[in-house]
């Protein structure tokens, strides 16, 4: 059956529309709208991180918020100790690196120890809770790293990412955050279309079988887990810089489960769907908190439940598939996010 061999898919169209909207939006809104959207962009990185490991490699982690917290705290500790606006960007790298290293160690611990599936979820949840419990009791003055006072539940004040003497604020802040989000998104999409990404897709379905095709499955699991740790830590750094603040509740149970719900509703297998749904749901949850606070969480819970029960591939992915099938005449069978390599092969063959 001949098939269109272009980049024209609902997913890609949605991404372009999303990008245009995100570029135009700050010129159509007020100061709050701009800062708020930047904040959403920072938190959406967490959804991308989760989508990468859960959707692309079948690893469900409740620990992304732990790496988020590690990134935020390490960024704060570094920038409070090493002054200067250029150092804030070094701090960003330090935070990301820290998240990646901790994730790599935990990943090695789990995957080389033969822990998989549900137990990965439980282990990462335990890590999150350990970190929260630990950070929560750092209220005393003895919990100071150099010049940085950890400050327990009252949270830590953190310098903002700066250019020259100017901390990022308003539109510049927004566009830096947006660029980071889109950059990470494109990087992850590209990675999932490489050999390595294909291997992840395969090991998600059947680990021993994939190993018998010559993939070093455990190493790949550790790699993708560390990568997702870096992205989650980046999310934490951007969040901490945005509010000038981080506290242990960013590693709590609720914080750990929220991104899972966003990604489940959108469609975990698609980075695009995860990104868009995270943005929409963050906004929705904020709107509900304003207009119907008592009912907000009930509505949210119902939405998640309906998605899981009736649209298991996720609302956004289901929409993509519908458009692909009926408007773009693309056949089923392609996973979102996998379009490019399939076409490459088809085009040649």
């Amino acid at each position, binding site marked *: 059956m001949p098939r269109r061999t272009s980049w024209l898919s609902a997913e890609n169209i949605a991404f372009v529309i999303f990008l245009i909207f995100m570029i135009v939006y700050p010129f159509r809104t007020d100061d709050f709208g701009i*800062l708020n959207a930047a904040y959403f962009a920072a938190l959406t990185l967490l959804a991308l991180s989760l989508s990468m490991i859960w959707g692309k490699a079948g690893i469900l982690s409740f620990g992304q918020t732990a790496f988020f917290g590690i990134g935020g705290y390490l960024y704060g500790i570094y920038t409070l100790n090493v002054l200067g606006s250029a150092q804030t960007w070094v701090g960003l790298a330090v935070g990301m690196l820290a998240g990646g290293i901790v994730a790599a160690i935990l990943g090695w611990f789990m995957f080389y120890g033969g822990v998989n599936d549900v137990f990965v979820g439980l282990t990462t949840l335990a890590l999150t809770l350990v970190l929260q419990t630990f950070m929560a*009791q750092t*209220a005393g003055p003895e919990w100071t790293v150099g010049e940085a006072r950890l400050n327990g539940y009252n949270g830590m004040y953190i310098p903002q990412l700066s250019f020259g003497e100017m901390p990022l604020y308003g539109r510049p802040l927004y566009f830096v955050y947006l660029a980071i989000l889109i950059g990470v998104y494109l990087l992850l999409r590209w990675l999932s279309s490489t050999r390595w990404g294909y291997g992840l897709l395969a090991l998600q379905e059947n680990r021993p079988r994939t190993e018998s095709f010559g993939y070093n499955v455990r190493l790949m699991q550790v790699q993708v887990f560390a990568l997702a740790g870096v992205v989650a830590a980046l999310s934490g750094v951007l969040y901490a810089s945005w*509010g000038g*603040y981080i506290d242990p509740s960013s590693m709590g149970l609720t914080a750990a489960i929220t991104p899972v719900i966003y990604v489940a509703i959108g469609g975990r297998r698609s980075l695009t769907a995860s990104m868009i749904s995270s943005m929409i749901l963050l906004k929705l949850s904020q709107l509900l908190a304003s207009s119907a606070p008592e009912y907000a969480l009930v509505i949210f819970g119902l939405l998640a439940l309906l998605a899981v029960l009736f649209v298991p591939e996720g609302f956004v992915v289901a929409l993509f598939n519908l458009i692909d099938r009926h408007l773009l005449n693309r056949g089923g069978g392609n996973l979102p996010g996998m379009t490019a390599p399939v076409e490459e092969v088809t085009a040649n063959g």
Partner: protein
Amino acid sequence: MDTNGFGQSAVAAKVSRRQLVKTSALTAGAMALASKIDVNYALAQDEGPVKIGWLGDRTGDFSLVGVQKYAAAELAVKELNEKGGILGREVQLVAEDAQSDNRRYQEMARKLLLQDKIDVLHACFTSAGREAIRPIIDQNKAIFFYNNQYEGGVCDNYVFPTGCVPDHQVVPFMPAVMDKFGKRVYTIAADYNFGQLTAAWCKKFVEANGGEVIGEEFIPLDVSQFSTTITNIQNAAPDILIVLLVGIKQSSFYEQKNSAGMQVPMATTVNMGQAYEHKRFPAPALSNMYVTVNFMEELAEGLGTDFPERVRSVAPDLEYVGMECAAEYEGINMYALGAEKAGTTEKDAVRKALESGISFEGPGGTVSIDPATHHTVRNIYMVHADENHNIVLDETFEAVRPDWLSADMGCDLPNKPDNTQYEP
């Protein structure tokens, strides 16, 4: 340029490098914003309704207190409007629910300040929530009323902490309970800033009055089983147990110590007054619990106020009218008096007016703002619950001044800008 925040001189004297870093970062942020935000606010001010921003916990862990505070805000705004508003302008309550979530506090504080362009923010219950939004407040040079009991020490040009602090509660309180029961004290406290700092205050004043702290235990916020703690306390056999537990989970302590048969007088700065444990737990779990408060529903009759009835006129289902409910009501009214005095809602002017010394006749008696620290001079009532959980008034301390910050820490906000939380 003095209005530009906290000049370097203010901090240089005794402040550590850490605070310097923090301050300069925020100052830079504030400067970057200054031009833009001032323009926005200029447009918003002195026309249309006066917008009172309210941000608190109507849902989530802290909603027991949050709903009381919200009812107080509704009542205050309703009464202000009945009296013709502020400066003849209608008063509008712009309320957001932070859902007991610090992240939500940050989002909503920004929304209220930048989008709704509120004139003043009355917000927060926990210290964590307050600290989460304080950078945002300072950055935007807003007026922030923190109408709540806390561990004390916040010296910040933009913050008015009108509730009780250890100056009010611990200083007169410790000698009084020690005279009654003895000098050996055991402290259990929530393991975070409020608990640790208040415990430090208590220790200081126990020792200053010739007593001894024979045990101190800090308990993680999510712990709800106290079996080992109860045994540890019994082993130490103190004369008084200071209880600085917070949150719903930790309140399980009372029933547990009761069923374990532990009989020891307790002292606290928060229980019963905020989340009415004496109403929620069957007697005698809280019998012999002593607390210092600015107000409690049971005190209304003695104080000759119909405040609880008025609150219930706007919130008929409210279960309790406690100390923070009264503090919230007083805070909003003090802002109104400040704006009237300034003759405008322009923020610098209102702040100056508030710093000139505002007094309000609240449910708990006269409350006035201490210009140097932005805290309040207020009456404090020491009460305890008897075996049937009836509240008994033991002693009244009138017009207690919160002068530790100014006397010992040199906080003098009108003359010396600052944004630090000092610790004992």
